[in-house]
């Protein structure tokens, strides 16, 4: 399994990472070295092994449906970069 520099650019876009063009070659190479480890894993015979969703062999504990949180807007917005009229302010997003 290996990726091209174009695929690397796509992955960077999905992850919102800015890639400097001069790093593209070396990063693709490094990426592919990691993927070669995945190839080793892919080669294992896993048909009979149940997929593991979590390293801890336990089940999720559930909580009762109770409102336990109260309004802490002031504290949260005090550390926000910008808040107005109770809203968190972000650069405009218009579809």
């Amino acid at each position, binding site marked *: 399994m290996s990726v091209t520099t174009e695929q690397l650019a796509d992955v960077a876009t999905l992850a919102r990472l800015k890639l400097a063009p001069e790093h593209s070659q070396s990063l693709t190479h490094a990426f592919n070295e990691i993927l070669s480890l995945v190839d080793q894993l892919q080669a294992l015979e896993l048909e009979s092994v149940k997929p593991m*969703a979590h390293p801890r062999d336990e089940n999720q*504990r559930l909580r009762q449906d109770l409102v336990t949180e109260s309004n802490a807007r002031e504290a949260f917005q005090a550390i926000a970069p910008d808040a107005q009229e109770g*809203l968190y*302010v972000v650069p405009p997003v218009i579809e």
Partner: protein
Amino acid sequence: MSWEVVIGLEVHLQLATESKIFSGSSTRFGAEPNTQASAVDLAMPGMLPVLNEQAVRYAVLFGLGIGAEIGQRSVFDRKNYFYPDLPKGYQISQFEQPIVGRGSFAVTLADGSTKTIGITRAHLEEDAGKSLHDAIPNASGIDLNRAGTPLLEIVSEPDIRSAEEAVAYLKTLHTLVTYLGISDGDMSQGSMRCDINLSLRKPGSTEFGTRTEIKNVNSFRFVERAIASEIERQSDILEEGGVIIQETRLYDAERDETRSMRSKEVANDYRYFPDPDLLPVELSDAYIAEIASTLPELPDAKKARFQAEYGLGEYDASALCDSQALAQFFELTTSRAKDPKLAANWILTDLLGQLNASGVKLQDAPIQPEQLGHLIERIKDNTLSSKMAKQVFEALWQGEAQGNVDQIIEARGLKQVSDSGALEALINEVVANNPEQVAQYQAADDGKRKKLIGFFVGQIMKASKGQANPQLVNQLLNKTLG
């Protein structure tokens, strides 16, 4: 050429829990922005989600309600994408092992036929926050009150073939989930939102055409219109030999058209993986059986029972079973009135008419089933004519006499006069005072007589201040006039 329409729907249903799916924040609608967003909902570092038991219970109840396989082991995954109203940068959802597997339910179409629509799966996930684009100049405002509200995403098979079927499916689903009590189903508050997957293919073809997805349509009417306009758009392209691009589109209700969401042009890759913050959910047989024991009577079963037990027609039974509250109103009314057909008429015509006209919801109606039942009782024992009964109904609606039917009848002097002695006296008086009309009547043939008798009935009703029993008046008049 005509195309076969293939539609699959994804419904996002807000579950009626008190608190959020992974935090103890309130889910109440309409609060001041960000006053119901805790550290977990805001994705503060180190916060861990803890699953709400009620959300699990509601999902299982839904699965049991549509006869689906219940995922006794289900897993939560991270669905990764960036948007300002999604603070974690991922949505907790379920991908490979959802809590509800395959199921189905039948929908009734306008022509009376039924069609079974398959459900591929239903899974639990958290809602995102809301982005407000016109609250703050040159910026977007983010309200995270909705972030973390529990959703059940219900995915249908591509079994739907028209806008009509899509709307019938959604209405049936809406009735079902409100019966189950797992959602308030209030579409105006976004409790039920719908994504439409739509493609066209040549009739008889077994392969699907390229589909588009129309996001976030939030009313039955808009679903119908969005589908119609997307069918037109796709068939225009195909007729001209073009190709459909697989993409996400938005329905613009004002222009009645769908348009492409540009930001989603880059093929989305959500890079799902199991969320390490949450362990797999295991449900025991006993737990599922316990939930099954709380299943209420579902709409179809209730409809069938109303027809069998009360002798109602298909239409009345169906209309009464439209909501559990209405069906219960009917049963309580009937238990007093002892006349299902009359009770059905009063509820479907007078009560619903009054509710619609005044914009009042059934649960806030000023008339209780017991009172309506009492009113119908007084029609049946001939105390009230149907005209008088409508006056009493009006008085009940206004809350007169603390809603006591007999007191209203007494206070308004509405008792129907069914005493033939008293009526005969009135009739004789009217006949004596109108010799001309009597002569006319006696000279007329049967056809004309039917019209002319109305004059006498009117005079007698007037003389009795509307209290004479009209049927009896007719009988007695016929005898007197010969």
